[in-house]
């Protein structure tokens, strides 16, 4: 790849980001959802936690022993904020490919000399802005509603964890995009995988309460490490060194999944081009 190609791809990335941002801005309802869900979803679980705690000291102690923190609201808000961010990253590339497919513009995009990475992850860059927004809303809600304050050091550590987690998550997103190219409609599959993550990755609970087999499944999924490490650095004051082992696993998973995703995407793209299926849906 020449320098000119690289410059062109960077420009294409910028253009894809601006396009997605403009589309998002047109639908005001979507903007509202980025304020509503980061607060409403975890808040429902906070009420549920109050009901399960019943104001008793022994139930609160059981929670603290299993999670390592007394911050029930913080635990739940961080878990569900991560879940929402994961949703955006994981389904973003596949959803935008599917949208282009339905609009009939996918074939035209594939005819441009821009890298496939631009097609896949250009929209995801603008979605990253929303991810940062979600965490900001959660931070403010925790501070104003529950008196949980997150300092700049904790925020910087959390950013470090997020950066390590990004390759794995984007790779899973690319795998979904490959499935979209191969099969078209995948919303049921997406919901199924989202369900698996919700059921085992610990958005609303620590994975120690899962049965053994489910714990093993949880430990093979990148979101489990991401959620646990974000909670550790934000709520228990853990340093990066204390979660370094997890971060290494997360990075290794990212590398492995990236290779797998690149291979799967190349193969399905070849299949779609040869079979003339890019425009079909």
């Amino acid at each position, binding site marked *: 790849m020449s320098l000119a190609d690289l410059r062109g791809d960077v420009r294409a990335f910028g253009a894809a980001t601006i396009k997605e941002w403009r589309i998002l801005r047109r*639908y005001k*309802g*979507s903007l*509202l*959802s980025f304020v*509503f*869900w980061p607060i*409403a*979803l975890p808040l*429902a*679980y906070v*009420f*549920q*936690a*109050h*009901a*399960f*705690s*019943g*104001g*008793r000291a*022994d*139930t*609160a102690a*059981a*929670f603290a022993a*299993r*999670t390592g923190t007394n911050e029930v609201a913080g635990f739940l808000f961080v878990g569900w904020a991560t879940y929402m961010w994961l949703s955006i990253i994981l389904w973003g590339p596949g959803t935008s490919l599917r949208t282009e497919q339905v609009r009939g513009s996918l074939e035209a995009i594939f005819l441009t000399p821009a890298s496939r990475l631009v097609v896949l992850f250009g929209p995801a860059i603008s979605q990253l802005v929303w991810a940062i927004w979600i965490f900001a809303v959660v931070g403010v809600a925790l501070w104003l509603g529950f008196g949980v304050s997150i300092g700049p050091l904790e925020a910087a550590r959390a950013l470090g964890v997020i950066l390590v987690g990004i390759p794995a998550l984007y790779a899973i997103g690319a795998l979904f995009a490959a499935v979209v190219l191969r099969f078209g409609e995948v*919303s*049921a599959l997406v*919901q*199924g995988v989202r*369900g*698996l993550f*919700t*059921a085992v990755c610990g*958005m*609303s*609970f*620590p994975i120690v*309460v*899962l049965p053994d087999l489910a714990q093993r499944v949880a430990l093979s999924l990148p979101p489990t490490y991401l959620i646990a490490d974000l909670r550790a650095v934000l709520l228990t004051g853990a340093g990066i060194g204390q979660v370094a082992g997890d971060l290494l696993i997360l990075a290794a998973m990212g590398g492995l999944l990236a290779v797998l995703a690149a291979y799967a995407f190349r193969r399905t793209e070849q299949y779609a081009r040869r079979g003339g299926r890019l425009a079909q849906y």
Partner: protein
Amino acid sequence: MDRPMDEIRNEWRAARAIARKELLVFRRYRLNAVNQVLQPLYQTLIPGVLLGATFAVGGEALGLAETAGTTDLTGYLFLGMLALNLGSAGFWAVAYSLKMELDAGTLEPGWLTPTRRETFVIGMTLAGLVFALLATAILLAIGTWFFGAQLAPRLVVAIPALAVASIGVLGIGYLIGAIVLRMREGNFFVDATDFIFVALSGAAFPIVVLPEAVRWISYLLPTTYALDLMRVAALDTRPLLAVPLEWVAMALTSVALVAVGRAAWLSTEHRMRMLGTIGQH
């Protein structure tokens, strides 16, 4: 001119035909249907049960016993899923069907038939209720086989409670129909109000943990009473009010919801006919 009884019979036949059509469309997308049945399991039940396990002391949900009067956490949340299904019948069955008709451009021709406009909503809600009933039966079977829930024999009380609450669900259908027609792209609104409705009905936690001002909104929803009556019968939970009073409150709120919803629907329909915007989407 037809006699009133003939007219009612004709409208009822039309409502059944609309419901049959909706169920036929639904059956075509089997994976989506399966996902809709299973969604409450992985989105509500499993995270809820595991959060409950995080607070458990010696394997017992002692906190829930304080707030709801039962330690049967799984049974409590299983019954909550019934409210989730009922809510979806009112919210999504009507919203989704109307949006499909709007997008396909078939709403206007449908409204040119001699069938009353209210009958369309009745048919769509009916289809939603049939699906909710099927989903509930499947979930109860799963609950009995996999989770060991012992609810079925004591749920006889659910039949009349669900029948009365269904009248209220029709009211929701009217309201949501009016909103979809006015907003045209109301996905976020429908999703958010469905979530709030289900949460305030006490699907995931006893409403006694809500702030007092919010609790008063719960008292205006018929599903709050339907759910509470079922839980009292199946799990011996503490009732919110005296049981006969709950039956009266459920009937009154159901009728009020239908009256308000129907008025909103008729006014929206009138406005759209005057503006000539029925075919727009």
